[in-house]
C-alpha cells in the first residue's frame, strides 16, 4: 500500500468517530470555558462578556464551597473504602473458600443494578420507622433517627450507598490481577516459611499496583461523575449537606437555568478531572510498575 493512500484510509476510518468526539467532547470543553466568561443568554440576544464575574459569584457562593467540601469528603470516604473492600473481596473470592461462587455473586450484583434503583432500595432501607436499619437498631434499643434527614449523617449515608455499588465492580479487576499471579510465587513463599500476611504485603500487594492505579483513577472519576443517587435520595439536602459538585452544576444549570454560572462551575470539575489525568500521566504511571 502506498504511503499517501494509507494516510487517506487512516483519516477516513477515523473521521466519523472524530467528528462526534469533536462535537460532544472537545467542543463542549472549549465552550464551557468560553461561556464561563459570559452571562447567561437571555431571549435571543447573545450573552455579553462579563469577564470573571461568574467566578466572583462562585467565590461568594456558599453552596459551591459546601459542595466542594462535601465532594472531597465523599471522595475520601468512597475511594479508600471501596478499594480496600474490593481487595479483600477479591482475595476471598480467589481463595479456595467454601461458597465463593455465591460470594462473588453477592459482591458483584450491585454493579449491574441502575444507580437509581440502588438509591430507591437504600432510601427505603434508611427510611425512619419503616426502614430495615431502624428496625435493626430498634432491636438494640437505639432510638430511631432520620438518617437521611439529619445533616450530620446524610453524607455518610450516600457514601455508603456509593461504596456498596462500586466495591464489587472494582473487585472484578483485582480478581483478574490475582489470577494472573503465578501460583509458584505462593508456593515459594510458603517454602520459605513466610506468613500469609507477609506474602500479601511483600508479593501480592506490589503486584497489584497497576490494578490499584487503574481502579484509583476510576474511583476518583466516579466520585465526581456519579450523582444519580443524590437526585433520588436527598436532592442535595438537608441544608446542602449532600450536595456534590456535579449536582450543584445540575441544579444551577437545569433548575435555575443559569447556564453562564453553571459553565463556570463545570470548569472547576474539568480542572479537577484534568489534574487527575495529568497526575496519572506524569507521576503515577512511572511509579507503580513493579520493576
Amino acid at each position, binding site marked *: 500500500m502506498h504511503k499517501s493512500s494509507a*494516510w487517506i*484510509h*487512516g*483519516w477516513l*476510518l477515523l473521521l*466519523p*468517530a472524530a467528528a*462526534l*468526539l469533536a*462535537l*460532544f*467532547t472537545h467542543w*463542549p*470543553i472549549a465552550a*464551557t470555558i468560553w*461561556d464561563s466568561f459570559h452571562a447567561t443568554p437571555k431571549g435571543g440576544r447573545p450573552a455579553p462578556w462579563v469577564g470573571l464575574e461568574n467566578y466572583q459569584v462562585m467565590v461568594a457562593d456558599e453552596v459551591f464551597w459546601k459542595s466542594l467540601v462535601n465532594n472531597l469528603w465523599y471522595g475520601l470516604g468512597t475511594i479508600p473504602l471501596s478499594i480496600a473492600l474490593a481487595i479483600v473481596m477479591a482475595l476471598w473470592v480467589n481463595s479456595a473458600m467454601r*461458597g465463593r*461462587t*455465591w460470594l*462473588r*455473586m*453477592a459482591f*458483584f*450484583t450491585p*454493579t*449491574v*443494578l*441502575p*444507580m*437509581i*434503583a440502588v438509591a*430507591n*432500595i*437504600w432510601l*427505603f432501607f434508611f*427510611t425512619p420507622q*419503616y*426502614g*430495615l436499619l431502624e428496625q435493626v437498631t430498634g432491636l438494640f434499643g437505639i432510638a430511631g433517627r432520620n438518617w437521611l434527614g439529619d445533616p450530620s449523617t446524610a453524607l455518610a449515608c450516600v457514601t455508603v450507598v456509593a461504596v*456498596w455499588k462500586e466495591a*464489587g*465492580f472494582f473487585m*472484578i*479487576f483485582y*480478581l*483478574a490481577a490475582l489470577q494472573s499471579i503465578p501460583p509458584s510465587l505462593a508456593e515459594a513463599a510458603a517454602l520459605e516459611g513466610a506468613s500469609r500476611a507477609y506474602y500479601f504485603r511483600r508479593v501480592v500487594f506490589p503486584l497489584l499496583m497497576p490494578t490499584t492505579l487503574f481502579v484509583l483513577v476510576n474511583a476518583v*472519576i466516579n466520585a465526581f461523575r456519579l450523582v444519580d443517587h443524590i*437526585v*433520588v435520595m436527598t436532592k442535595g439536602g438537608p441544608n446542602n449537606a449532600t450536595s456534590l459538585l456535579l449536582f450543584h*452544576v445540575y441544579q444551577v*444549570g*437545569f433548575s435555575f437555568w443559569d*447556564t453562564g454560572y453553571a*459553565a463556570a462551575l*463545570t470548569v472547576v*470539575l*474539568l480542572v479537577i*478531572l*484534568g489534574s487527575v*489525568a495529568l497526575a496519572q500521566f506524569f507521576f503515577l504511571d512511572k511509579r507503580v510498575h513493579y520493576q
Partner: protein
Amino acid sequence: MRRIETVAAWILGFLWILPLLYAFWTAFHPPEFSTRLALAAPLTLDNFRRAWDAAPFARYFLNSFMLVTLVLAAQLVLCTLAAYAFARFEFPGKNVAFVLVLVQLMIMPDVLIVENYRTLGRLGILDSIPAIGLPYMASAFGIFLLRQTFKTIPRELDEAARVEGAGALEVLWKVYVPLARPTYLAFGLVSVSYHWNNFLWPLIVTSSVTSRPVTVGLQVFSSGDQGIDWSVITAATLMTSAPLLVAFLLFQRQFVQSFMRAGIR
C-alpha cells in the same frame, strides 16, 4: 484463622445482598408485610401489577431497549473503524488524534451536561432517543479496547488477505472483526449495562413519555403522586433492574469475564 475468615466473608456477603433481599421481600408481599418479616406472609405479584398499571412502563422499556440498541450499534461501527485506523495505519497526526480520543476517558459526556444540552437544542433534537445516545456514540473506551485487541492480531493474516486482493474494509471485516469477538462481547455487555442504567443525562434531555428510558420513568413514577407506597415503588424498582439482573444471574461467568477483559489495559 481460616475458619474465622470464611465466617467473616460470609457475613460480608450476606450484608452485601441484604438490601436487595429486603427489596425482594417488600416487592413480593402485600404492603402490610412490607416491614414485618413474618414467615407466614403470603406471596403476591399484586405490587408489580399495580406499578405496571400506574405508569407507561411498557413504553419506557421499549425506549430503553431502542436507546441501548442504537447506542451499541453506532458504537460498534464507529469504534471498530477508528480502532482499525489507530492499530494498522500510519498517518500524520495519529498520535495527537489518539491523545484527543483519550481525553474522553477522563472527561466523559456525563460532566459536560450544560454544553451538550445547548448543542442538542441547536440541532433541534432535544427530547428524543437519539439525543440521549449521541454524546456517547464515539466511545473512547471502545476505541481503546478494540485498538489493543487489533494490535495483537498478527500482521501476516492481514497481509495474506491483502495478497488475495482484499481491500482495507474487507480485511477488517474478514480478519479483524471475527478474531476480536470476545472483546466485542465484553464491550457490548459493559455498554449495554451503562446505558440501560444511565440516569442524569437522560433525565435532563427527555421530557415526555415517548423518549424517557426506564430509569427516568422510574424516577418520575416514584417521585410522583404515588404517596409513599413502598411496596409498589420497590416492585417498580426491581422491574427496571430485572433485565440486567436476570441476564447477570443466568450468564454470571460471561458477565464477570467480560468486565474483567474490559478492565485490563
